[in-house]
C-alpha cells in the first residue's frame, strides 16, 4: 500500500512542474519576444477574463454553442444507437452495412462543411447538423461491435424457450447494448465538439467565429486567448462528465 502511495506523487509532481514551467515560459516569451498585438501572456488573459465574461453578447454566443453541442450529442447518441442496433441485430446486417459505417467514419468530414452551411444556413442548425454527423458514427461503430458481444448462447437458449423478438430485445440485447453504447460516448463527445467548433469557426458573421474574427482583427489577443481558454475548459468539463457517466454505467454492467 505504501509503495503504491509513494509512486504516483512523483509522477504528478513531474506533471505539475512541467505545466507550471510551460506557463512561465509562455509568460516570459510573450513579454520579452511577443508582439503585444498578436501574443498575450497568461497573466493578461486572466486579467481580461472578467471583462470578456462580462460581455452579455459573448456569454450568449458561448451559451448557444454549449446548447448546440448538447443537442447534437443527444441526437447523435439516440440515432447512432437505433441505427447501430438495426444493423448489428443480424449477422447479415452487420456484414452488409458495417463496412459502409467504417468507410464513412474514416472520411475527413470537414470537406463537406461548406455544403452543410449552404444547406442548413449560417445559424445553429448547421452546427448541430455538423456536430451530429461527427458524433453519430462512433456511436454506431461501438454499438455494432458491442452487439457482437451478446452471447449467441443466450440468444439461442432464449429462442429455444420461445422468447419473442420483443422479449429478446428487452431482456438480452438491450441490457448488453446500453453498456456498449456508453463505451462510445467519450469518443462521440470529443468528435461532436470538433464538428460544432469547426462549424462555429467557419461562419464569421455570428457566434464564436464572429468573436474570434473581431478579436483577431482588432488586435485583442488577450480576449481571443480568453475566449479559447473558456471553450477549452468547457470541452474538458463535458468530456469529464461523459467519462463519469461512462464509468458509472460500466460498473453497473459488471455487477
Amino acid at each position, binding site marked *: 500500500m505504501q509503495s503504491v502511495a509513494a509512486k504516483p506523487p512523483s509522477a504528478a509532481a513531474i506533471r505539475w512542474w512541467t505545466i507550471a514551467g510551460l506557463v512561465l515560459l509562455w509568460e516570459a516569451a510573450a513579454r520579452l519576444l511577443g508582439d503585444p498585438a498578436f501574443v498575450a501572456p497568461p497573466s493578461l488573459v486572466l486579467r481580461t477574463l472578467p471583462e470578456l465574461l462580462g460581455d452579455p453578447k459573448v456569454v450568449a454566443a458561448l451559451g448557444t454553442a454549449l446548447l448546440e453541442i448538447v443537442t447534437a450529442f443527444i441526437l447523435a447518441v439516440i440515432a447512432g444507437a437505433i441505427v447501430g442496433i438495426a444493423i448489428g441485430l443480424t449477422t447479415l446486417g452487420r456484414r452488409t452495412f458495417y463496412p459502409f459505417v467504417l468507410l464513412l467514419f474514416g472520411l*475527413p468530414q470537414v*470537406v463537406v462543411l461548406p455544403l452543410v452551411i449552404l444547406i442548413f444556413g449560417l445559424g445553429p442548425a448547421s452546427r448541430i447538423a455538423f456536430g451530429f454527423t461527427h458524433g453519430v458514427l462512433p456511436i454506431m461503430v461501438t454499438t455494432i461491435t458491442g452487439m457482437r458481444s451478446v452471447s449467441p448462447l443466450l440468444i439461442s437458449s432464449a429462442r429455444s424457450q420461445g422468447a419473442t423478438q420483443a422479449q429478446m430485445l428487452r431482456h438480452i440485447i438491450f441490457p448488453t447494448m446500453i453498456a456498449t453504447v456508453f463505451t462510445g460516448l467519450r469518443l462521440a463527445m*470529443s468528435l461532436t465538439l470538433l464538428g460544432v*467548433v469547426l462549424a462555429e469557426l467557419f461562419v464569421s458573421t455570428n457566434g464564436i467565429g464572429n468573436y474570434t474574427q473581431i478579436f483577431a482583427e482588432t488586435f485583442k489577443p488577450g480576449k481571443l486567448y480568453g475566449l479559447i481558454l473558456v471553450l477549452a475548459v468547457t470541452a474538458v468539463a463535458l468530456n469529464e462528465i461523459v467519462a463519469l457517466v461512462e464509468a458509472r454505467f460500466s460498473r453497473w454492467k459488471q455487477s
Partner: protein
Amino acid sequence: MLAQAKVERRLTALSHLIQLAVIVAAVGAWAFLTSAHAINPLFLPAPLAVLKALVHLVGSRGFWGAVGVTTFTTAVAYAIAASAGIVLGFFIGRSPTLTAAYRPVLAGLFAIPLTLFFPLFVVMFGLGPASKIAFGALYGFFPIVLNTIAGFSGIDRLFLRSAQSQGATRAQTLRHIFLPGAWPVVLAGLRIGFFITFASVLGGETLSSAAGVGYSIAHEGDLLDSPPMFAWIAIVLTVTVLLNLALTVLEKRAVRSS
C-alpha cells in the same frame, strides 16, 4: 462443418449483393431526384453535372496548384508531427514515471477539439501555409506520441531485465526488445496521425486560407457553384479511401517483415 462453411459463403455473397444494390439504388435515387427537380440543384447537383465539372476541374491549372499547396503543407506538417511524436514518445514511454506523468495530460489535450486553437495559429502565422503546417503538425502529433508511448511502455519489463542481466548493450536492447515490441503500435499511430494531419490541413484551409484544396471547396461554396464543389469533395474522399487502403497494406507488410 461443411454445411456451416456453405452457409457462411452464402451469407457473404448475399451481403455483397445487398451492398451492390444499395450503391446502385443510391446513385439511381441521386439521378432520379435531380432530374425530377425534387431537390434544389444547389444542394445536390445532377450526377452528370458533377462529372462534367470533375473533368473540367482536373484539366484546369488551378486544380494542380491547389493540390500542390495541400500536398506540400501536409507533407511538412506530417514530418514535424511524426518526428516530434516519435522522439518524445520514445523518451516518455521508456520510463514508467514519465509515462504516468505525461500520458494523462496528452490524452486529455487530444480529447479537446484542438480546432479551437486554430484562430491563434492564423494570428501568429498568417493566412499562408505556415499556419496550416503548425496546426496540422500539432493535431497529428498527439496520436503519434500517444501510440509511441503506448508501444514503448507496453514492453514487458521482464524481457528487459533478463536482457540487461545477460549483458545486453543499450543498442542491443533497443534493437531486439524495444523495437519489435513497440513497432506495430507505433506504426498504427503513424497511420492515424497521417490522416489526422491531412484532415487538419484541409480543415485549416477551409476555415481561413488563400490557397489549397480546402480553400477551393469553401470558395466554390461561396460562389454557390455546387458541381465543382461536389467534384472536389468526390476527389478528396476518393483519395482518402485509396490512401487508407494503401497505408493499411503497407502497415501490415511492415509489421510482418519485422
